[in-house]
């Protein structure tokens, strides 16, 4: 029983992480019909941004007193860096290609993804105040606040890390749900997603909506990276590759373009991965997501929450 409960806890914790990344995929796909391959690497950049900010404000220094303000500063700073990066990627790499065939944008996205992954592995430039690019060897994320056990049920310890991660992730998802369905910007975003040309004719600034969508999604990826880095402090330039791909699978699973779908898809993927890896075949962990993807695309390509669209000539 306690083993089962432990798997559930781990699965939900990995799953919320996938869900937060998947939200970025699903929103971008909703407005642009583009798989933003570089999204997983924005996640990686978020972890490194948090790392550098934490070092700059002295979190790793001797005798650091944990404070809520500093933790919030790391989170907001890192989400800001990611939002800026997402905006820049869209502005410089995707916007010039928007009228070209979709394959062109996909290839560009792959290019950006590899540029971030391998650019971050280069040796550090001289003369910068921080060690950037960080190089290929893994870094350890400093401890923002100490880990304490809050609750113990059937030998399964729930630490403050688990609770805070889950709480933050849920709060961010609710905030996003509010933005998409209850604000003026959300209406504009859904209109662009429905039909960009008509939306433009109705006076919606399509370019700005797409920019903000990218910034929002990237900020969520940054938050996901920090939530992950707090409990698994090993960060390296390739850390975004697998979570990025799996979060995409989660988005497809839930129905790409649907915000609740991405959340449910992410948590279900995290749970199924943890269950299969825990009880059956631990070394097949990385293949499970892709098996799910192939199954979903064959059986129900629109995903759990998606709407089937017919193709028009």
């Amino acid at each position, binding site marked *: 029983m306690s083993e089962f409960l432990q798997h559930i806890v781990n699965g939900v914790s990995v799953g919320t992480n996938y869900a937060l990344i998947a939200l970025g995929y699903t929103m971008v796909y909703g407005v642009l019909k*583009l798989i933003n391959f570089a999204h997983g690497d924005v996640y990686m950049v978020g972890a490194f941004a948090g790392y550098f900010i934490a070092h700059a404000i002295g979190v790793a220094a001797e005798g650091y007193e944990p404070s809520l303000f500093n933790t919030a500063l790391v989170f907001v700073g890192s989400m800001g860096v990611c939002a800026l990066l997402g905006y820049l990627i869209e502005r410089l*790499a995707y916007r010039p290609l928007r009228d070209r065939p*979709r394959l062109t944008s996909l*290839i560009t996205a792959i290019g950006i993804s*590899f*540029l971030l*992954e391998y650019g971050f592995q280069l040796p550090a430039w001289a003369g910068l105040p921080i060690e950037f690019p960080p190089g290929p060897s893994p870094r350890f994320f400093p401890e923002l606040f100490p880990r304490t056990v809050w609750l113990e049920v059937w030998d399964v310890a729930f630490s403050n890390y688990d609770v805070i991660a889950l709480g933050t992730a849920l709060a961010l998802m609710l905030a996003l749900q509010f933005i998409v369905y209850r604000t003026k910007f959300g209406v504009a975003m859904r209109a662009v997603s429905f039909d960009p040309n008509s939306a433009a004719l109705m006076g919606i600034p399509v370019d700005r909506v797409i920019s903000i969508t990218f910034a929002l999604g990237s900020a969520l990826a940054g938050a996901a990276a920090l939530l992950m880095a707090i409990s698994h402090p090993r960060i390296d330039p390739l850390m975004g590759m697998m979570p990025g791909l799996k979060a995409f699978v989660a988005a*497809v699973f839930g129905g790409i373009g649907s915000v609740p779908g991405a959340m449910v898809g992410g948590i279900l993927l995290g749970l199924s991965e943890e269950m299969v890896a825990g009880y059956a075949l631990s070394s097949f962990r990385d293949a499970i997501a*892709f*098996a799910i993807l192939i199954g979903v695309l064959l059986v129900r390509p629109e995903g759990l929450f998606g709407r089937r669209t017919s193709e028009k000539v």
Partner: protein
Amino acid sequence: MRALRSLAPFLLGAPVFWLVQCYAPPTLAIVLLMAGVNVILAVSLNMVNGFTGQFSLGHAGFMAIGAYTTAKITLALGDPAGGVPPWLWSNGVFLLALLAGMGLSALMGLMVGVPSLRLRGDYLAIVTLGFNEIIRVLIENVRWLGGATGISGVPPYTTLVWVGLAALATVVTAQRLLCSTHGRAMLSVREDEVAAEAMGVDTVGYKVRAFALSAAFAGLGGGLLGHYILLVTPKSFTFVKSIEVVVMVVLGGMGSISGATLAAVLLTGALELMRGLDQYRMVMYSLLLVVLMLARPTGLFGTREIWEFWGAKKKKAAA
């Protein structure tokens, strides 16, 4: 006469490759060999990404199948039997093993292609990538295939003559495919899938055929590579390898056989010149992809071949 014409490239090519193998300095021979393998990979990926306009990111998976099959067979049949001279035995076994590797890769291509080629565009890209990862994880978990450490001690059968002839075979197959009924059907799928279907072209069928053929030659490339580096590991066939091949095809121009060939040779040569700057390799590839897409999304030659450019110039001059 017709048979002679199809054999001519090989009859002409074999002595040339043999002479190069005997007299080229070792470093040049290595570069040429790698270039040849890359030509095989790029031209075969071009059959899917160029001819039918689909986007596969799983080429390395098929390379892996070819490499493992070939290595298993040559290791099992290592010692000459029945009084056959060793050189004949090793080359014969290698030929058999390569053909078996191609066959198995094609079969796998068929199995992957039938379900996934119903999907379009970016979904297909992700699914092929997924299959690539699944193949790699499966290999890592099978002890008979050496698990994560792979198979070492593969016999050094790959020579410049083998690679040259295999590259020629790939290019000739691609060229003759393009001029055939099947090739025309594939091009029609690329140009407009809906229109092609309306004209009675079995679009999924042709996509699957292109995919299987492409997988077969990827297996050939993988087999040759394995018998050159004498080691077959799952790490050599991650999707980073697939992306490298995609870069070559995109640089040459999707759909251009000579473009893919030239891009493969150019990139291999450029990497050799950049030796020691290995960490910049993937950075260069990714920058190349982004800049190409922004500045010249058709690649060097688009869908045309090199010689078509000379023809076009002459026509302009005449007019």
